[in-house]
């Protein structure tokens, strides 16, 4: 037996040595994408497999959350902010050999705004009036109104370029212009990509990429410890991190996602239509203690924006943890001690466990929180669609989603003319300095009205082999951009 074990250990040592010349990567993800067309569904996993690997857009969002050129070499914006002229890369071909030129841009954008479009972010394209081709390598996009986030929005998975030839089949056999070609998909287990031999840009270092889907925390830990998985950019078992940190084979990266975890309030339902009640709730919750209790490495937030984002201002001091003040505000609003409030909790751990912590905190100020766990589909139907709730805990994961506070109908029913005016100005302003000022105003206004209790930014906990370079620390958009990932040595 001893000899057998020694042999096995030697075998693993050998496979360790083989890492040096490695050009393949196995990347773990907690959720499997339902299909592989990022322009036809919202699931983050679709973009985390395909964006910038298989498909590319005119622009791209970088690891730092900035806009950079991709299929557009460069662009100019007319002084009125309405006309964008993109100079396109030439000689680019899709994986199936069909050419990329301006007609593809026109097709892709028109498909996204069409009445029967099922693009989950159709709102991104709504400002577009028309896309015209002055020649094959120049696309001119005209907007209805200036749109500050237009280039950013065109740089994510929802706005990738789709060939008219392959559009109908992209859900199961994706075809793009990117550095990796889709090879196969073992449903329920893995998606395999390989290097695109005719890629138009700098060839990627990796030759083979496998995405494997492991939701179970114990299985994910075992897979990374066993070396079956090289990288887990969104590691699902934070409780195992202490052990992994001690192991020199791994890099543990603590970054941030765009997930604003909030306790949403039904602003239309009394007593929550009274701002004093909402502020009291904000004072009653100790965000630092909540983050600690969840072991989630999140950063407390004071408004609907993520620390580190362009124009972020720290408003976490606006409603410091102060149970006495919370009780005073509740008394002023006529809320008697012992009043019952319901918190609906969707499945993620931050909601289910966070709900218990928050219920205990609310009890300190005399509120009896009734916790109702709901399944995700129930949450979407009851809370989101019908606004049937008092309070709920949820992470809003789309970047820059200030629009949800300006919609006529959105589940938490915040309707404020003052906010809408600032928001309208912000989306239409393209001057960077003015935008910074406006993004500050938006954050302050939300903090002031406290339509929801802003809790913390969802952390991005990544674990990967220490010899890997080029993986993103933060997640400014849903992505696992592998074009620059490589093994060292």
């Amino acid at each position, binding site marked *: 037996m001893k000899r057998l074990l020694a042999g096995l250990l030697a075998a693993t040592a050998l496979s360790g040595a083989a890492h040096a010349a490695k050009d393949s990567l196995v990347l773990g993800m907690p959720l499997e994408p*339902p299909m592989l067309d990022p322009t036809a569904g919202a699931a983050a996993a679709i973009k985390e497999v395909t964006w910038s690997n298989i498909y590319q857009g005119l622009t791209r969002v970088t690891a730092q959350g900035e806009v950079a050129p991709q299929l557009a070499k460069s662009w100019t914006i007319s002084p009125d902010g309405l006309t964008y002229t993109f100079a396109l890369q030439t000689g680019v071909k899709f994986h199936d050999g069909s050419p990329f030129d301006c007609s593809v841009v026109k097709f892709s954008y028109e498909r996204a705004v069409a009445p029967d479009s099922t693009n989950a972010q159709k*709102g991104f394209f709504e400002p577009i009036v028309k896309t015209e081709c002055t020649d094959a390598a120049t696309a001119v996009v005209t907007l209805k109104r200036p749109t500050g986030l237009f280039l950013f929005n065109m740089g994510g998975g929802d706005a990738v370029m789709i060939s008219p030839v392959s559009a109908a089949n992209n859900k199961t056999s994706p075809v793009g212009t990117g550095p990796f070609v889709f090879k196969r998909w073992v449903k329920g*287990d893995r998606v395999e990509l390989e290097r695109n031999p005719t890629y138009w840009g700098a060839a990627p270092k990796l030759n083979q990429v496998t995405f494997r889907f492991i939701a179970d925390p114990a299985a994910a830990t075992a897979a990374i410890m066993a070396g079956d998985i090289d990288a887990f950019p969104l590691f699902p078992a934070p409780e195992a991190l202490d052990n992994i940190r001690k192991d020199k084979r791994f890099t543990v990266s603590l970054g941030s996602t765009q997930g604003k975890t909030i306790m949403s309030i039904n602003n239309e339902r009394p007593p929550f239509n009274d701002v004093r009640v909402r502020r009291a709730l904000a004072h009653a919750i100790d965000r630092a203690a909540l983050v600690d209790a969840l072991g989630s490495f999140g950063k407390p937030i004071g408004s609907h924006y993520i620390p580190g984002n362009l124009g972020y201002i720290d408003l976490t001091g606006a409603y410091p943890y102060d149970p006495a003040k919370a009780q005073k505000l509740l008394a002023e609003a006529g809320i008697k001690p012992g009043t019952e409030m319901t918190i609906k909790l969707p499945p993620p751990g931050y909601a289910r466990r966070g709900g218990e912590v928050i219920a205990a905190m609310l009890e300190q100020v005399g509120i009896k929180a009734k916790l109702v766990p709901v399944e995700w589909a129930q949450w979407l139907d009851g809370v989101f669609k019908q606004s049937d709730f008092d309070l709920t805990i949820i992470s809003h994961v789309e970047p820059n989603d200030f629009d949800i506070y300006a919609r006529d109908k959105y589940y938490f029913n915040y309707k404020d003319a003052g906010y809408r005016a600032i928001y309208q100005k912000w989306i239409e302003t393209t001057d960077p300095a003015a935008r910074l000022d406006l993004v500050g105003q938006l954050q302050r206004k939300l903090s002031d009205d406290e339509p929801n209790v802003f809790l913390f930014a969802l952390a991005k906990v990544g674990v990967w082999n220490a010899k890997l370079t080029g993986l993103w620390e933060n997640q400014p958009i849903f992505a696992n951009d592998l074009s620059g990932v490589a093994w060292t040595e």
Partner: protein
Amino acid sequence: MTAFLIRRLVGLILTLLAASIVVFLVLQVLPGDPAMLMLDTSARPDTIAALRDKLGLDRPAWIRYLSWIWGIVRGDFGISYTYSVPVSELIGQRVLVSLPLALTSICLSTTLAIPVGVLAAARRGRATDAGLMGIAQVGVALPNFWLGILLILLFAVAYPILPAGGFVGWEKGAWPAFRCLILPAFALALPQAAILSRVTRSAVLETLGQDYVRTALAKGLTGVAALWRHAVPNALIPVVTIIGLQFSFLLAGTVIVENVFTLPGMGRLVFQAIAQRDLIVVQDLVVLLAGSVIVVNFLVDLAYLGLDPRITHESAR
């Protein structure tokens, strides 16, 4: 025999029809909109409406039911809402994992459990019996997913001789694919073997006390021969019943073990489809599983006939 088969076939069809109506009605009552689940919280209402229209969700319930059933009759199981591929393809891939896994587990647990149970019965009240049944008692109490994690830690992390999970697919070759099923098969089989060995033991104990065993011993048969020739064959009916039940469970009730080993089996497909409100997949799977349970029961009944000639087709109905 023909009449017997026809009766069973009619029973099968009626049961499937009943199952299809029940599952369809339950899914109608269940809150949740597949289109909304696919497009999430940032989508605009008109986009959700467009997708509902594409999926045909706005047609009246009875039309959806009839077109579903009519499709099945023609062998068309529909297109999955979430995965956008034919459901038959989706289920086909999963069956290629779940069926070999179930068969391997059932073979493992049977080959382990029957000798252990018989041995314990033969050594009734002695140390061997107490030892074996003590282990079996622990086995019954072991949750299979926990055993699975333990097996992974032992055979994939500490001594990496088998994969920690995942499934490479049969196209990579029979052995690489089968390797992925070894640990999960053990995780599923051991607790089931524990139950089965206890059932075997008590069944054999019962037959050992029967007159015909005493007669066999009296006519000069050795204890071992009497045990294997008379006591064991007569004890097999409850054992086969339990094996049938366990097999039905293994086909789709193994979602937790599949999660631990990240196997793309039927259990996870059912679970995902319910969570995603992939209604058509849930409907198809429920009907299919109901059908397979009925078929397994039928095979168990046939086994009764083989095991005990006194049982007739009439009583096996």
